[in-house]
């Protein structure tokens, strides 16, 4: 049992939220830290200190959460940092490809609701040569003219490209989790030693910039042969993702700082080692 206001409990809670280790390893680190601190408190009490003084002294000798976390992170080495970066890039790649799939879906909705010219309008002042005009007309024989044929083609392309990207993204997603599963089955871990905020911040920057770029392109009524609907689809999906990662970042910060969050005791008291 821990008394209310127990500083050891508070320290362990902060340590737990700050560690960038796999659950089993975190459990062991916390169990050892708790045993050590409780032992140090008992020694302090035996030496005549009060409970509060003993806890203060135990925590002070153990080191700040930052110091302890850094010591555990340093023990990971450069290889672990590189593996974490590769895994983060991999995750970002499948997130991006799945986002392109979502862009295709939104574009399809615009195709149906606002009409294909909204999504696939060809760039203004486009000049069609006889050769490429006959090419567009051959692909879309129902079109009234070259510009309409090109527009119909580009409005369909965004949906088809989105589906292709989503399928490739799903393959990368599957591979990502297979790697985790493979390492886990071999009794090893793919440790993420990067700061918790690293991935959300990277995703916010990437999707935020893309949302802004797509929004601007949509505002100037399309660019590079695409209609405003295509850019608007991109802006909507990227904005949703950027906002989702802002919320994720807030959650990560909350986990790190929330004083009232009480992790399950099993998290650190029942660690069974590696």
């Amino acid at each position, binding site marked *: 049992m821990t008394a209310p206001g127990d500083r050891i409990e508070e320290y362990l809670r902060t340590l737990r939220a700050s560690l960038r280790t796999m659950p089993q390893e975190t459990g062991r680190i916390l169990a050892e830290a708790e045993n050590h601190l409780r032992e140090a408190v008992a020694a302090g009490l035996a030496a005549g200190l009060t409970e509060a003084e003993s806890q203060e002294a135990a925590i002070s000798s153990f080191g700040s959460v930052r*110091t302890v976390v850094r010591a555990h992170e340093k023990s990971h080495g450069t290889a672990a940092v590189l593996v974490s970066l590769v895994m983060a890039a991999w995750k970002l790649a499948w997130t991006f490809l799945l986002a392109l799939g979502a862009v295709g879906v939104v574009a399809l909705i615009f195709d149906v609701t606002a009409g294909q010219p909204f999504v696939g309008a060809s760039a203004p002042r486009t000049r069609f040569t006889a050769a490429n005009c006959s090419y567009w007309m051959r692909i879309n024989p129902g079109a009234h003219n070259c510009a309409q044929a090109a527009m119909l083609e580009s409005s369909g392309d965004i949906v088809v490209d989105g589906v292709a990207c989503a399928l490739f993204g799903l393959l990368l997603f599957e591979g990502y989790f297979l790697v985790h599963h493979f390492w886990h089955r071999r009794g090893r871990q793919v440790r993420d030693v990067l700061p918790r905020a690293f991935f959300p911040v990277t995703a916010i920057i990437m999707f935020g910039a893309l949302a802004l770029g797509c929004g601007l392109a949509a505002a100037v009524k399309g660019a590079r042969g695409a209609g405003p609907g295509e850019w608007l689809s991109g802006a909507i999906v990227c904005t949703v993702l950027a906002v989702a990662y802002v919320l994720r970042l807030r959650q990560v910060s909350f986990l790190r700082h929330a004083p009232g969050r009480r992790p399950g005791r099993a998290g650190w008291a029942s660690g069974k080692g590696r």
Partner: protein
Amino acid sequence: MDREPVKGHLELLLLSVLAAGPAHGYAIISSLRTRSDGAFDLPEGTVYPALHRLEDAGLLASSWAQDDGRKRRVYALTDEGVAALAARQTEWRRFASAVQAVAGWSA
């Protein structure tokens, strides 16, 4: 005492403490402090990653043990750990005597 040199030799120091017999983290750290007469006074929480590293390298083995109603992780030298300790002690002695010879003082 400056902590940096201690960190550089922490693994040798931990292996040396465990040469006396298996011990849990708190006892290892207390022994380190007592045997160095307080000179090796590191933040205690930073010693555990070194113990984990030694275990990953196969120089230590550990298991949970129940003692006085308290569950503790007890560390012990493996055969590889004993050999590594002997090698590092030899290396350290050679280094210390070389420094001693160059610095021109005797212990």
